[in-house]
Every structure is written in structure tokens, then in C-alpha cells.
């Protein structure tokens, strides 16, 4: 529904627009897209969160630059016995353990194997967010992991959306047996608990990969979680779209197209599809938020991205057992997920408000 802290939108009627542009001027024709863009431009919160999402994407894409110019280590470079200099002090990256007697006679016990915490920018860009138990730079791993997480999230959302569009068009346009088969197919996916199905498929496929039907995918390929997630979400987009196609099918302009002798393919692609565009855009944005969360969950359970390849979910899972001594290890990648998903949710809401203002009701008190 509404995005946070924004003004209520009003419908831009042609008359209002004309009035804004100097009253008497002739009313210009404007496409719904122009009007939607206008409404979106006024929704600063949604735009700010879009900017945040793009910023996260750009940062993750720049992971190699960060790795070579700032942290100076790759995502899988271990550094168990290394030391770094912070403010003139020499610190172990992963503590060796031991007992030190402080100046005032107090005894400080340091357990072994505890990685160094966040150094922010005191160590010249090294270990900005701390290290993991192998001395790997967490910030570098989060950026590289983000690249994987975002790639899987966006790719699987795109595949799901494409497949759903095809299924929805076929089911809604042809109806009858085709519709029956496709809706039963949706029901079938729906009947599995998403996460169970995802884990079962992900684990099964990640063992030796997939080598059938001319495809050759290795077990550690990112395409496995991508395919699993895109399969699981098909009914979530396919069902609402099918409903819309069913309704559009009965409209007069379709009848007109039929009367003009347009082929079925042409009617589906050039008559019905453009009318679905705004819904598809909104559903896509919101489903990316979900696919990113699902990727994290699958990777957390070991059925998604395979180690040592990082992803936000595997990083949280790696840090879970050391949460007491190294809380930053699990917390930091989680914050990255929350920010990404939140920005997509807020922007998706704003997009829906802009594209379909009637869904937003003004309340009279």
C-alpha cells in the first residue's frame, strides 16, 4: 500500500495538467506512462529507495575494484596467521589466544581463533567490517556475495516473470483444456511448501550438477539456485496475470482485432501484453525482493550457492556458530539483505501507486 511519509497522490486529470501549464492552453494528450512517471517523480521516498537499491547494485558490481584497491585481498584469500597495524598497534587477524597481564594488574584472556572485528577505516581499508575465522576480509566477501545474491535474485525473477507471462497468456487466451492444464500446473507448484521444494531440488542438483537434455551444469553453478527459485515462484506471478488476461480477453478491442483477422499470436503479443505491462513491472519488482530472500534462505541451509563461493545467505550461515565471539560476521550480510529487500519493497509500492492510482483510496474523515 502506501509508501512511508509521502503526500497522498491525486489523479492527474487532463484539466489539472492544463491548468498547471498556464490555464487556457490547449489540453495536450499524454500517455498513461507519462502520467505514471509524473506521479512517481513526486514520490521522493520511493525514488530515494530506488537510488539505494541502485547504489547497492553498483557497489556489488565494483567488488573487484574494492578488492584490488581498498582491501587488497580477494574474496577467498585466507589470512589466518597474518597481522595488521591499526593506530600503530599490531593486531592478529585471527587471535592466537593467550593471557596478557594489563598495566593495572588485570588479566585479560583471549580465546584462540577469534577473528578481528570491524576496523572501519583505521586499518587503511583492511578489514573494514572485520574478518571471518579464516582471516578472509568480510567486506570483500559481502560485496562478492552480493554480486552472487543479486545475480541469482534478478535472473530468477526475470525467468519466473517471462515464463509466467507465457503461461498466463496461453491459459487466459485459449481457455478450455490449455487453461485447465496450466492452472493445475500452478496448483501443483503451489501445493509444495516453497522452501521444502527449493531445498530438495537445490540439494539434489548441487551434488553432481545436472547433465540431461543436452544441458551440462556443474553442481556449484549459480544457475542451479537460479533455476530452482524461478520454478518455485511461477504461480505467484502466473495466477494474477492469468486473471487479468481472462478479463482482457472479453474486451471489445480484442473482438475488434479478431474481426480484423489478427492471428492469435498477434493478439496476445500486441493487444493483450501491452495492457499487462504495468502489472508485470510491479510484480517483477516485488518478486525480486522475494527471490533474494529465498536465495538467502536456500544458501543458509546449504542448498543454494556452494562454498567457497560467497553469498549473503552462506555468509550468515558461516557466522552463525561464532555469533557470540564474532557477531559482525552474521550481522553485516543480514543488514545488506534487509537494505536491498526493503529498498525493492518500498520502490515496488511506489511504482504500484504511480501506475495504478485507483488502487489507492483517499479516505474522507
Amino acid at each position, binding site marked *: *500500500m*502506501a*509508501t*512511508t*511519509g509521502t503526500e*497522498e497522490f491525486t489523479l492527474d486529470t487532463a484539466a489539472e495538467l492544463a491548468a498547471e501549464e498556464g490555464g487556457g492552453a490547449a489540453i495536450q494528450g499524454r500517455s498513461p506512462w507519462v502520467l505514471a512517471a509524473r506521479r512517481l517523480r513526486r514520490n521522493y521516498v520511493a525514488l530515494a529507495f530506488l537510488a539505494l537499491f541502485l547504489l547497492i547494485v553498483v557497489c556489488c558490481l565494483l567488488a573487484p575494484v574494492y578488492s584490488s584497491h581498498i582491501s587488497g585481498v580477494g574474496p577467498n584469500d585466507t589470512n589466518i596467521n597474518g597481522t595488521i597495524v591499526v593506530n600503530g598497534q599490531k593486531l592478529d587477524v585471527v587471535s592466537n589466544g593467550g593471557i596478557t597481564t594489563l598495566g593495572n594488574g588485570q588479566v585479560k584472556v583471549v580465546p584462540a581463533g577469534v577473528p578481528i572485528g570491524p576496523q572501519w577505516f583505521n586499518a587503511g581499508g583492511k578489514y573494514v567490517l572485520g574478518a571471518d575465522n579464516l582471516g578472509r576480509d568480510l567486506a570483500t566477501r559481502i560485496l562478492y556475495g552480493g554480486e552472487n545474491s543479486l545475480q541469482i535474485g534478478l535472473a530468477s525473477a526475470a525467468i519466473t516473470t517471462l515464463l509466467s507471462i507465457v503461461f498466463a497468456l496461453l491459459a487466459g487466451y485459449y481457455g478450455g483444456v490449455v487453461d485447465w492444464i496450466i492452472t493445475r500446473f500452478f*496448483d*501443483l507448484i*503451489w*501445493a*509444495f*511448501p*516453497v*522452501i*521444502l*521444494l527449493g*531445498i*530438495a*531440488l537445490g*540439494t*539434489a*542438483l548441487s*551434488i*553432481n*550438477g*545436472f*547433465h*540431461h537434455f543436452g544441458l551440462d551444469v556443474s553442481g556449484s553453478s549459480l544457475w542451479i539456485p537460479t533455476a530452482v527459485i524461478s520454478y518455485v515462484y511461477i504461480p505467484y506471478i502466473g495466477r494474477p496475470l492469468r486473471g487479468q488476461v481472462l478479463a482482457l480477453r472479453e474486451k471489445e478491442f480484442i473482438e475488434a482485432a479478431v474481426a480484423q483477422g489478427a492471428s492469435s499470436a498477434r493478439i496476445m503479443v500486441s493487444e493483450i501484453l501491452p495492457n499487462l505491462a504495468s502489472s508485470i513491472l510491479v510484480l517483477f519488482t516485488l518478486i525480486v*525482493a522475494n527471490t533474494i*530472500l529465498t536465495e*538467502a*534462505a536456500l544458501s*543458509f*541451509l*546449504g*542448498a543454494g550457492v556452494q562454498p567457497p563461493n560467497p553469498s549473503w*545467505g552462506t555468509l*550468515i550461515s558461516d557466522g*552463525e556458530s561464532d*555469533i*557470540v565471539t564474532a*557477531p559482525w560476521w*552474521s*550481522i553485516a550480510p*543480514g543488514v545488506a*539483505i*534487509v537494505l536491498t*529487500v*526493503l529498498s525493492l*519493497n*518500498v520502490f515496488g*509500492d511506489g511504482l504500484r501507486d504511480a501506475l495504478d492510482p485507483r*488502487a489507492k*483510496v483517499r*479516505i474522507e474523515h
Partner: protein
Amino acid sequence: MAAFLFRRVLGMILVLAVVSFIVYLVFIVIPGGDPAIRIAGRTATQANIFSIRHKLGLDQPFYVQWYDMVKALFTGTLVSYSDQTNVVSQIWQGLPVTLSLSIGAGIIWLGFGVLVGVIAAVTAGKVSDRLITVLALIGVSMPVFWLGILLRYALAEQNSWFPDGGYVPLTQNPAQWFYHLILPWLTLAVLFIGFYGRVLRSNVLDTINEDYVRTAKAKGLSPRRILVRHVLRTSLIPIVTLFGLDFAAVLGGGAILTETVYDLHGVGFYARTAIGNLDLPPLMGVTLYGALFIVLFSTLVDVAYAYLDPRIRPA
């Protein structure tokens, strides 16, 4: 009504059969998935593998294997490939944990979801609405397992305000049962509270502008009566659907993440272990058990829907 129910039950059985068949195919298609090779171990001779394969019926055509497995599941004789335990009794063992977790969390998320949604809708545009909207958005954007890890770290490990994971049976000690489940309940409920709150808010706002609400207002009914009897009656219908399906998914092993984070050995946890061992029989059992709940609840939801909304009652 009887015909409607008959059709639904028939559909349920069909869906369950297909679901079980797909689970079977998934684990047959995967290379290296041959359980006989894994069970036989590293130093197995070809003869060993053949005898195990024969014992498990893996040398039969796959539809015969599938039929045997489903039959064994329903007669309660299905055993796991990896540790030979009985699948049905293992699921029964996990059931109290999963039931405790999902019923408690379900009450919390339905109650708070409705409360939060109604408050946001009646104060739409005010500070409370904005605050709820922001919190709800953050709630739906958090990975469940991450929230669980954080809560467990902050409230059970840093400060020992809550027990650090685990489960105490209700029959053994009700107070400890409740105490151990508070964090898992909250963790599982947060996502749904945010989601339900958002859905209900927009439903209420849509309904408020309906003609019949204006009529009720014109008749001079009190705002409270209008909200409860006229607006909520309609707005809650989609929530009933959502709740039925979500609750079924959680009951059917969907709480796998929460169960993992808090060491609750429920059905989801069992499924996770089975998947880790690529153990087909337990996985078949849990998937069918989960699908059964989902199909059953979606039928119940349709019945409830017809009862709540006379407009769509089947003739």
C-alpha cells in the same frame, strides 16, 4: 455442497499422487542419487551394490518403486535409507514440536496482524499509520533465519533472558514449554504480522469507500459498528484465505528455518536432515505430509470463503 466436497477430495488425492511422483522423479533423475551406491559405502563390490539395489527394490521400473514407496508410507512400514528408522514414526515424533510452534505463532501473527492492520487503516495518514507501515515493511524485508539468529544472540546468549534454543514438551513442563517457544514464535510471526497488516490496511481502505458503507453511515450507525460489522466482515475475507494457506505451509514443514535456528526438532528439522543425507523416504514422507496440509487447508479455506462471503457461495 456434497458434490463440491467430493470434487475437492478427488482433486486432493490427484495432487498428492502427482506431488509424490515428482519428488520421486527429482531424486531418480539426479546423477549420483542412486541410494544403493551411497549405502554400500566406499569399498563396495558390484555384487554388494546389486544386492542392496535389489533389497530396496531399486532394480524395479521407477513406477513400481514409486508405488511401493507410497504404499509403504501409507501402511507405516517405510524406513529411511540412511539410518533405517521408521519414517512415519519420526514424523509423529516431530509433530508436537511443529504443532506447538505453528499454532502459537499463528495465534500471534493473526492477532497482531489484524490489530496492526486495523489501527493503520483507521488512523490512515497519521503518525501511528506511518510508523506501522515502516515497521511492517522492515518486517517483511527481514530474512526469518537472520532475525532468529539475532534474537537468539541478543536475548538468549548475550543476556540469558530466554533459553538458548531447544524444546520442552508441553506434557513435561507447560511453563518451560511456553518459555522455550516465545522467541521462535515471535521470529516466525514477525514476517506474517507485517504482511497481514499491510494487506488488511489496504483492504479496509478499499472497503470504506464502498456504497454499502456509505449507506450504513447514512443510516446513522456508530463508526465502531460500521467498522466491525460492515467493513471488517468484508476486509477479513482475504486474510482468512492467506491465513489458511500460510498456516498450512508452516504446519507442513515450512517453518524449517525457524526450527533450524532454534534447534527445534520438528518436522521441518527432520526434512532438513533427510535432505542433507539425500535420504529419499523421509523426504517423500515429509513432502506428502506437507502437501496434505496445504491441499486440506486450501479446501477448508474455500469452504470458509463460501460461508463468509454469500456472493460466491456455490449454487
